[in-house]
């Protein structure tokens, strides 16, 4: 008798897995970053719209966020206002990482919509982005004062995400004055 219950048992396990799968389906799309807990990659990239280079080592010792964006990316437009609010709050410096875009388009966009970034760099051919494991804009990384990547958010930045995932991780003394 026992072994004839086996198929039913296996089926039950399967149902449980599928049930959990459905519950988690909305979050399916997000792949966790491979960089969490690891040192942020160093980069030297041209400043957006300028001739100088920017070296990421100048960010050492400070909490900062890096926002990957492009003018071709609709969700980036959606989150732009939120980014401006973050910049205004002065919580921490926001670095703009313009990904696979044209400088002229990017500058025009920032001029028209406002520039939330304390520094903007351009990765025109996408090489540096690979080091960060970027796979689709917008993405925002949170890096601590020791240079470790503590969080990555994929998708448009929202007030809830900012508060829950980013602000909550900041020590109270982090960032600029406030």
């Amino acid at each position: 008798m026992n072994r004839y219950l086996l198929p039913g048992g296996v089926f039950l396990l399967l149902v449980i897995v599928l049930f959990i799968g459905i519950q988690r389906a909305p979050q399916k799309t997000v792949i966790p970053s491979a960089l969490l807990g690891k040192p942020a990659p160093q980069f030297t990239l041209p400043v957006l719209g300028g001739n100088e280079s920017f070296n990421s080592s100048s960010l050492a010792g400070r909490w900062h966020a890096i926002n990957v964006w492009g003018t071709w990316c609709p969700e980036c437009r959606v989150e732009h206002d939120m980014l401006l609010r973050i910049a205004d709050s002065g919580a921490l410096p926001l670095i703009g990482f313009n990904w696979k875009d044209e400088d002229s388009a990017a500058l025009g966009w920032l001029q028209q919509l406002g520039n939330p970034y304390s520094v903007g760099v351009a990765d025109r051919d996408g090489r540096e982005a690979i080091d960060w494991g970027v796979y689709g804009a917008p993405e925002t990384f949170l890096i601590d004062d020791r240079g470790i990547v503590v969080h990555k958010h994929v998708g448009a930045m929202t007030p809830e995400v900012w508060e829950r995932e980013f602000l909550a991780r900041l020590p109270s003394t982090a960032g600029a004055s406030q």
Partner: protein
Amino acid sequence: MTRWLRVCRVGLLALLLSSSALAIDPIELSDPALQERYRDLTHELRCMQCQNQSIADSPVGLAGDLRREVRELLESGKTDAEIREHLRARYGDFILFRPVFNWRNAWLWAAPVILLLLGLVVAVRVLRQRARLAATDTTSPDDPAP
């Protein structure tokens, strides 16, 4: 971002696959042996944006960037394992189509083997039992038509 993935996934079979021809990448490496490895590697790596295609077959820009990365790594003399590890360190296990064998997915690789062994055990038991019965079983007809 999630919108991108949704756009890639839901119902836009066509978007992915219709432009599949655009994934054709006629760039060839200097060395035919490298070209061979390039082909194999790019089929093994997942396009992180359109997630059920390899970077060899995906039309999106990210796939092209990743293919370029693979080419550059190959030409700089890295081994296949080093290249896979390079990308895995940046994108995580998900970028590899062949699941890396570690304790987390050992069950996946072991499952078919275990199932096969189980099947063989069952087969042997049944066969032994039935062969014993065959000696005494006179009820059923011999060799009916198929």
